């Protein structure tokens, strides 16, 4: 159903061309189709126009036109989103960030880097490491994802346990607002309490408030050394208990990843790096820092794992092998996709003391609803990725998948956790958001949305659901 009449659409197109130039406005069928999806299964909708502005000012001008014409705006980096946030569900325009892909400044005195939103995350990471600096957030898609997308989703990654997530490294932003204004928030400042913390309001706002057009990120010194071990288990709960035990022993590794057998097999099938496919679970553990401390921590962690019935603990023999393991882990979701036509992934998160309980609950839910769920994820920070292997063409199974996930969300919240640790609410978790925030919490969110985007053009259909999903009576 077209949002605009042909006449209005032509007028809108002319306005966009005037702002961004003819070559940066595309309304061809192919041009629109290739921006109709992201990495979230089962969501696809064609935008009416795709526009790629060249500057922050052009972005602000586009937003103003959209607000005036009630045209939905869907901001897009590389489209690796996992909650359908970049999918233009209500038509309108897709706003591409591809021209804003420059690294503007590496400030070695303040240890900051200032970048445009279309910069690829890994380019930032690689560049600063050449100067012995470190940008820790490393979402699995970091080779592809843009920093703007990471900021909008407040992405996590494999190093979240020790170093935190994207929001912990944002010092200042420039943001384009739907009223056509450009604002700057924060600064290269460790301390700054002048006004509300608008920087962190926009981080994780999923494109529903404005468009981040520039960001200044905090850097830290690069750790001197790093070691990686693999702990192997024949009992997945024992792996879960190891995670809690490591933390309880006051060990904070950089990375503490969990992979179950399905995931191990799928990843090995792709990466061919000799992962043991005959075990029920693996923990991939990385520690970094000064050499002596890394050695001491890794030794202690290995002991803890053995104490929790790890059948074997292996040390990566070289930096290359360690990198191979991390890269293989990053491929887990897409590798699982080779097993079944549709892979539906969630990222319910619990306090890390509850990891074993959550792993058990996921297994029970899978059995109850007769669905196949593989689990991997950032066990150390309580952020698991139960992934349902299914087929979108099987309606009966799909409805069971939905019920299974509803129950997993219930369980996560019951354990003091949350719906989503790092992928965002988007469309997929919007119906459940009130379970976590409560009615009053949702009202606060709506008030903020209304104040900044009164015409409701920024990423409509996301975060705020038309209807909250009814809670099942089985739990609670």
């Amino acid at each position, binding site marked *: 159903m077209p949002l605009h009449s042909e006449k209005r659409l032509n007028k809108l197109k002319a306005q966009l061309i005037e702002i961004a130039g003819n070559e940066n406005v595309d309304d061809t069928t192919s041009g629109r189709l*290739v921006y109709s999806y992201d990495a979230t299964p089962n969501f696809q909708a064609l935008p009416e126009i795709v526009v790629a502005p060249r500057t922050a000012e052009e972005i602000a001008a586009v937003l103003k036109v959209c607000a005036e014409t009630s045209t939905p705006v869907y901001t897009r980096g590389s489209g690796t989103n996992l909650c359908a946030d970049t999918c233009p569900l209500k038509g309108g325009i897709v706003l591409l960030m591809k021209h804003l892909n420059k690294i503007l400044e590496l400030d070695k005195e303040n240890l900051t880097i200032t970048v445009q939103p279309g910069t690829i995350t890994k380019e930032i990471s690689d560049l600063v490491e050449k100067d012995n600096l470190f940008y820790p957030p490393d979402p699995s898609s970091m080779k592809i994802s843009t920093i703007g997308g990471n900021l909008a989703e407040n992405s996590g990654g494999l190093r979240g346990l020790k170093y935190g997530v994207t929001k912990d490294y944002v010092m200042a932003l420039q943001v384009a607002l739907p009223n056509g204004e450009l604002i700057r928030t924060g600064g290269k400042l460790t301390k700054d309490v002048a006004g509300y913390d608008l920087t962190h309001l926009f981080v994780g706002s999923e494109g529903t408030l404005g468009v981040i057009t520039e960001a200044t990120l905090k850097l830290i010194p690069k750790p001197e050394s790093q070691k990686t071990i693999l702990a192997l288990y024949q009992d997945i709960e024992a792996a879960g208990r190891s995670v809690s035990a490591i933390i309880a022993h006051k060990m904070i590794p950089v990375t503490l990843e969990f992979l179950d057998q399905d995931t191990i097999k799928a990843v090995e099938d792709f990466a061919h790096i000799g992962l043991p496919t005959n075990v029920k679970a693996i923990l991939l553990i990385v520690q970094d820092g000064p050499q002596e401390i890394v050695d001491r921590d890794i030794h202690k962690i290995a002991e803890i794992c053995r104490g929790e019935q790890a059948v074997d603990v292996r040390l990566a023999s070289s930096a290359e092998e360690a990198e191979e393991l991390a890269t293989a882990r990053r491929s887990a979701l897409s590798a699982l996709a080779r097993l079944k036509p549709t892979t539906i992934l969630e990222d319910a998160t619990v306090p890390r003391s509850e990891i074993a309980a959550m792993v058990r609950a996921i297994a029970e839910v899978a059995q109850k609803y007769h669905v196949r769920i593989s689990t991997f994820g950032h066990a150390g920070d309580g952020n698991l990725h139960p992934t349902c292997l299914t087929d979108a063409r099987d309606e009966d199974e799909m409805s069971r998948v939905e019920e299974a996930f509803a129950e997993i969300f219930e369980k996560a919240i019951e354990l003091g956790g949350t719906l989503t640790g790092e992928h965002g609410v988007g469309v997929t978790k919007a119906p459940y958001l009130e379970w976590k925030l409560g009615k009053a919490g949702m009202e606060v969110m709506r008030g903020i949305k209304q104040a900044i985007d009164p015409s409701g053009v920024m990423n409509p259909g996301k975060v705020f659901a038309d209807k909250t999903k009814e809670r099942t009576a089985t739990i609670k």
Partner: protein
Amino acid sequence: MMSAADKKNIQREFKEEMDYDELLNCMRCGFCLPSCPTYIETGHQEKHSPRGRIALMKGVADGLIEPDDDLAHSLDVCLGCRACEPVCPSGVQYGHLLEDARTILQRNKRQTVGVKMLRKGIFDELFPRQDRMEKVTGLIGFYQRSGLSKVARKVGFMNLFPESMATMEKVLPEVPKRSVMKQRPRFFEHEGEKKATVALFAGCLMDTMFFDTNNATIKLLRKAGCDVLIPENQLCCGALHGHNGELEKSKQLAKQNIEAFEAAEADYIITNAGGCSAFLIDYDHLLKDEPEWSERAKHFVGKLKDISRILVELDFQKTHRLQLPDQIITYQDSCHLRNVMKTFNEPRILLKAIEGVHFVELEGADTCCGSAGDYNIVQPEMAMQILDHKMEKVADTCAQIIVTANPGCLLEMKLGVERAHKSNEVRAMHIADVLVEALVNE
């Protein structure tokens, strides 16, 4: 332009013929994007990425969009280098999807009589007929030897062609006389200890325009301890047909080649052209729907190896002393040898074994040079853009020799050297020729 009727046909055929499970297998994670040369060269245009192209194919199969010329263009711009396949965690067979889609589009293309005749001439009458390949390349040889080439260059005849083709004409290797090609025996005995019997897939272009490289390949195989057979009745591998939407003709060629090599009963089938080998190794997929052929195709595929792989397996570089004057050498991967045959360490092992040579890894050696079969002829602008970026990286290595392992890549590298006005300083060579030149006591 596609007519409404064309669009309807194409849509129906996409629905009926495209492998829908394979289309679904793409979960749109985007892991392929950084590996795609056209995505990078176009400044991150999704329609020039593997994920975008698969989405377009699926969009047509789903009936979400109608096929149109933009869609055809998106598929045309693809190099077919398949760099997206090894990086795809889901294991999507992009190359197969591309071939199927191109076949449907080709079948429904309205072409002028001239283009139709030309395609028929090339795909039906020339490439499948080795005698005619010899004649045509023989003509090139005559053209080169007679001095006509000099005259043509002088009077500017080549200026009538696109710039890339005109430069290409300058860099074509000297083609031997047909009589020389005809006289080559079909069997060569091993030297030293016998280790294997191999059958050489001679290739249509390799065995005419690159006849000397084939001879070098035979020499290396003999020295490595192989009896070498060159089966008669072998034909073009069919890659050019497959990549241009002429799959039926590829199948005919595949069957004839399988038959020709069955008769040879060799331990291995050896190729020295990455592009051909990647197509040959897909014969089992190509013939999967023909029960009487699928097993035979699997058997054929199981024997296939690139020259560099068998040499390393037979310890050639350990048993023969290799030496060249002090110089820097670099290596440009053949996309298909790397991404499909998974052969990329072996050429480097061999080159590093040459004394006097300092091997410098070329940054981005694993990405396409822009040759991509006939891509540099049908998409000259993109091909030249990719090539020029490639030559900047080559210049960074300061190499005196750029080594490749496929005739298309070799010509492209020669073209790149010519375009960069470096033909006096830099040579582009096939790895077999480099190794023969490096053999000590020859």
